[in-house]
């Protein structure tokens, strides 16, 4: 339930850009969200609806693009994908060398990608 903590910033960015572009209305808002952020899409949508109420983005459609998690093994440089909420995510080991020492290449994104306005 940390979606509410994040959605305020989303609405601020959208309203700021829509205002600069003199938009009458925001039609859609596209977000790019890394799987590691563990965002529940439905909850994000509900929170967005609540916070965007009364703004130029009030009737916009929220589009969420998920970015898969990709890790790189610090021991042997192998890249591997990880899925949250699976046995793998609680015991991630490198498929090549068996160690569990990683850096995150992608999956932590949280971007407002673009907006469609009229």
């Amino acid at each position, binding site marked *: *339930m*940390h979606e*509410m*903590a*994040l959605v305020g*910033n*989303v609405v*601020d*960015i*959208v309203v700021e*850009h*829509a205002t600069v*572009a003199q*938009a*009458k209305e925001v*039609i859609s808002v596209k977000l790019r969200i890394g799987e*590691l*952020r*563990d965002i529940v899409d439905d909850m994000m949508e509900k929170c967005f609806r609540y916070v965007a109420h009364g703004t130029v983005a009030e009737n916009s459609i929220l589009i969420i693009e998920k970015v898969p998690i990709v890790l790189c093994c*610090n021991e042997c440089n192998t890249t591997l994908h990880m899925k949250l909420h699976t046995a793998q*995510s*609680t015991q*991630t080991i490198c498929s090549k060398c068996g160690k*569990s*020492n*990683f850096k*995150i290449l992608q999956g932590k*994104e*949280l*971007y*407002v*990608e*673009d*907006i*469609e*306005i*009229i």
Partner: protein
Amino acid sequence: MDSVRVIEIKKSIFEDNDLEARKLRNKLKNRKTFLINLMSSPGSGKTTTLKAVCRKLKDEMKIGIMEADIDSTVDAEAMAKEGVRSIQLHTGGMCHLDAGMTEQGLVEIKDEELDFVVLENVGNLVCPAEFDTGAAKNVSILSVPEGDDKPLKYPLMYQVADLLIINKIDTASFFDFDFEACEKAAKMRNPDIKIIKISAKTGEGIDELCDWIRNEVKAWNA
């Protein structure tokens, strides 16, 4: 009919906060104020740990504690009794603090007069981990009764923590807490995490924690 225009933004929703946090960190570096962001679930012993630390360190450095809670002033009052400067920050329902709120607190506590300031974040293992507060170091407390699997369940908290304090080790015989499994899981989230085991109640491990603070304060001011 108005034509639809697409505006490319590609802006991280953390961008403004990250920028404010970086500025605040630079300011604190120049003022030689070492700020830690202390995070944990409610009831892990943040305030009790701070009391134990303040008793040992208050004669050698000027300490300030900023207690963030949704409501009440019980924590700030408890810290004031220990003879350290303390203020209560009310988040007004917010589940976390960001760099802007931290900076407001620092103005109120007059951080320029202090060597070591602790921001006691809202008790929550999720949202506080998302926002950079501008602190020099992130510290997370995990207490034995909560279970050794917290680093598996709340990945981000342990990724962002520089120091993990395992508290209430005096209760270990009552719980099936596997220290080795906990440390392994925390290191999987963050290979560089430092781990110190303490009991704020009995005082075990508090000297090691105070040494960590002394060294970090020294490194920050170098």
